[in-house]
C-alpha cells in the first residue's frame, strides 16, 4: 500500500513536469528565419519600335540578372532579405512612350528605383524621376544635357558610357592596330555631337591620337549608309575610322560601304554591338578589320558573375550573336549599392553611392568617377571592357581593356 502511494506520487510528478515542459516549449518557439520580402525595381526598355533591336535583348538580360541576384539570396538589409521584383515598362522607342512608361512606374507601380532607359532616351524620364526623388540608373549615356548632370542628382550610370567606351575603343586600337595615329570620327546625330565630340577628341589626344577631317554625323534611320561610307572614305589622311555609339544597322552598313569602296582601313566602333551582328549585315565581303566592344561568353578573363549571367541567358548568344548587359549591369551595380547603403530610401542610397570610390560590376571593379565629364561627382562609372575582333569574316575574342576612371 505504501509502495503504491509512492509510485502514484512519482508518476504524477512526472506527468506534471512533462506538461510544464511542453507548455514552456510551445510558449517560446525557436526564432524562425524572417520571411523574404520583395523590392520592386522598375525597368524602362523599348521592347517595341526601332530601338527594340537592342532593348528586346536587354529586357531578357536584365531579367536574367534579377534572377541571378535572387538565386544568390537577393538583397539583404539589416538581416531582412529582399527578392527583386522587376517591373518592365515598354517605352516604344519614342520620347512620348518613355514619359508614359516613367509615369506608370512612379504613380501606378510605386517604384523607388529604376534602371534604364539607355542613352538620350533618359532625357525624357529624368524630370519625372527627379521630381519624385526616384533613384534611376541608366545603362548608357551620350553626354547630352539632361541625361546625367547637375540637373539629375538622383540619376546615375551603371555601365560604361559613351566616353568610357571611347576610351575602351581607343585602348583596343592600341592593342590591335599599333600603327594607327590618325582617326576620323563618325557618329549618329542624336543630339549628342556638340557635347560628346569635344570629350572624345580630348580622350583621343590624351592617348596620342590625332583626329582628322570633320566629324561625320548621320541620321539614326537611313536605308543606305553608302553616302556616309563615301564621306569617311574621302578623309584620306585617316589611318582608321572610329564610329562612336551607333546601332547595328549603322555599323554593318558603313563597314560594308567602306569595303565596297576598296577601303580596308581599320574600323572601330565603341558600341557594344557584337561583331557577329556587324558581320551579318556587312556580309562576307565587308566583314573584316573591325573591332567592337562585344561580350564573348566564357572568354579568358571574364569575371565569374559575367559568365554566370551569360549561362542564364541560354542560347541568346548563339541565336542572336550578341549580349549587351547595359541595363543588366546597371541593375547589378544598383543592387550592390543598395546593399552597401543598408537602406531602401533612395536619398540614402544616393548619398552612399556618391561616397563610394569603387563598386563591383559584372565586368569587374568599376571606378566611380566622371566629375569633370558630367559635372556631378561619382555618378558615372569606368569599368573593364572586353572587345571582339572581326577579321576575314571570323569573329574572335580580342581581350580586355581597363577604362580606369572617367575624367
Amino acid at each position: 500500500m505504501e509502495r503504491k502511494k509512492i509510485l502514484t506520487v512519482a508518476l504524477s510528478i512526472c506527468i506534471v513536469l512533462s506538461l510544464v515542459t511542453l507548455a514552456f516549449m510551445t510558449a517560446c518557439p525557436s526564432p524562425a528565419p524572417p520571411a523574404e520580402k520583395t523590392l520592386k525595381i522598375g525597368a524602362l526598355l523599348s521592347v517595341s519600335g526601332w530601338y527594340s533591336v537592342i532593348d528586346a535583348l536587354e529586357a531578357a538580360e536584365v531579367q536574367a540578372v534579377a534572377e541571378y541576384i535572387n538565386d544568390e539570396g537577393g538583397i539583404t538589409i539589416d538581416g531582412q532579405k529582399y527578392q527583386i521584383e522587376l517591373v518592365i515598362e515598354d517605352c516604344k522607342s519614342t520620347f512620348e512612350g518613355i514619359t508614359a512608361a516613367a509615369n506608370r512606374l512612379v504613380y501606378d507601380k510605386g517604384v523607388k528605383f529604376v534602371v534604364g532607359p539607355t542613352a538620350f532616351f533618359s532625357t525624357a524620364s529624368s524630370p519625372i524621376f527627379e521630381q519624385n526623388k526616384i533613384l534611376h540608373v541608366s545603362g548608357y549615356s551620350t553626354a547630352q544635357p539632361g541625361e546625367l548632370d547637375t540637373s539629375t542628382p538622383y540619376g546615375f550610370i551603371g555601365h560604361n558610357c559613351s566616353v568610357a567606351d571611347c576610351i575602351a575603343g581607343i585602348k583596343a586600337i592600341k592593342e590591335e592596330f599599333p600603327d594607327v595615329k590618325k582617326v576620323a570620327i563618325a557618329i549618329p546625330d542624336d543630339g549628342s555631337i556638340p557635347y560628346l565630340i569635344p570629350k572624345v577628341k580630348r580622350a583621343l589626344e590624351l592617348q596620342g591620337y590625332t583626329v582628322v577631317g570633320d566629324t561625320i554625323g548621320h541620321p539614326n534611320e537611313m536605308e543606305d549608309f553608302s553616302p556616309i561610307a563615301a564621306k569617311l572614305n574621302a578623309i584620306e589622311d585617316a589611318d582608321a575610322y572610329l564610329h562612336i555609339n551607333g546601332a547595328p544597322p549603322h555599323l554593318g552598313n558603313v563597314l560594308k560601304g567602306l569595303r565596297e569602296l576598296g577601303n580596308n582601313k581599320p574600323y572601330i566602333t565603341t558600341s557594344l554591338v557584337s561583331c557577329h551582328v556587324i558581320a551579318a549585315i556587312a556580309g562576307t565581303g565587308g566583314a573584316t578589320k573591325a573591332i567592337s566592344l562585344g561580350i564573348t561568353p566564357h572568354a579568358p578573363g571574364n569575371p565569374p558573375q559575367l559568365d554566370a549571367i551569360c549561362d542564364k541567358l541560354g542560347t541568346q548568344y548563339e541565336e542572336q550573336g550578341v549580349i549587351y548587359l547595359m541595363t543588366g549591369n546597371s541593375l547589378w551595380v544598383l543592387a550592390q549599392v543598395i546593399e552597401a547603403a543598408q537602406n531602401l530610401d533612395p536619398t540614402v542610397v544616393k548619398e552612399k553611392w556618391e561616397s563610394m570610390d569603387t563598386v563591383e560590376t559584372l565586368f569587374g571593379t568599376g571606378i566611380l568617377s566622371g566629375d569633370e565629364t558630367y559635372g556631378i561627382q561619382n555618378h558615372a562609372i569606368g569599368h573593364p571592357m572586353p572587345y571582339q575582333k572581326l577579321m576575314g569574316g571570323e569573329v574572335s575574342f580580342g581581350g580586355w581593356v581597363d577604362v580606369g576612371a572617367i575624367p
Partner: protein
Amino acid sequence: MELAVQTLTNVLIFSAMYILAALGFAFLFNMLRILNFAHGAIYMIGGYVGYLFIVGMGFNQWVALLLATLIVAAFGVFLEKFCFRPFVGDFNRTIMICIAIAVILQTTVNIMVGTKMMAIPTFVEGVFRAGPASISYERIVTFAIGAALLGLITWFVNRTKWGQQMQAIAQDREGASLQGINVHRISALAFALGCGLAAVAGCLLGAYLRLSPFMGDLMLIKVLIIVMLAGIGSINGILIAGLILGSLNAVLPVLLSGAASDAIIIAIVVVLLLIRPQGFFGYEVEI
C-alpha cells in the same frame, strides 16, 4: 573627285532602290485607288520569306526570290478577298485595315524571329571598279531588276488586256463591271502583282541593306513620297519621282552633316507638292 563620282553612282542606285520599293504600292494606287499602307509590312514579309527559303531551307537565291514572290502574291490575293473587298469605296475603313495588317505582320515577325539583325546573303558577290567609281554587283543587279520591272509594269498597264481592264476599273468601277469586266478577278490580279512586286523589293533590298521587322516603316515613307510626287494615274512618273528622291537622299547627306538632311528632303518634297499638288504627271481625283 572620288566622292563626287561615288555620289553620282549613289544617285542612280538610290533611285532604283526607291523605284523598286514603290512599284507595288504605285501599281495598286493607280489601278485600284487603294492607299495600301500595309505595303511596308508586305515588303518586309517578302524579305523574311526569301530569307527563310535561302538560309532556312538552302534554296538557290534566285529560286527563293521567285518562290517568295509567288507566296506573297498569293497572300495578296487573300488580302484582297478578305480584307479589302468588303470595304471597297470606304476610305477610312481601308486605312484602318491597312494599319491593322501592318501591325499584325510586324508583331508576328517580331515575336517569331525577334529583333535580331539579319541580312539575306548577297545575290551576286564582288565589286565592279572603274576608275574612281566602285559599285557592288549586288547594287548593279538591284538597279537592273528595278529598271526591268518598271518597264514591264508600264508595258503591262498600257499594252495588255488585263492592264487596260485595271485602268477601266480605276476610272469607273461600276462602269467597268457593266462592260463585262470581272472586277473581283482583276482586283485580285492587281493585288497579286502589287504584293509580288513588294516581295521582290523586300528580297533584293533585304540582301543589300538588312532585314528587320521595322524595315518597311522607313521605306513606306519614301514610297509615299514617290507616289505623291509622281501623281495619281502615272506609272511613268515613278521614274522621275524616284530619281528626284534618290538624288536628294544620295547628295544631301554628303553635303550636310547629321539628321538635317532628312528634314530638308521632306521640306523640299512639301514645297514641290505645294507647287503641284497633283504630282508631276498625275491628275486630281477623289479617293
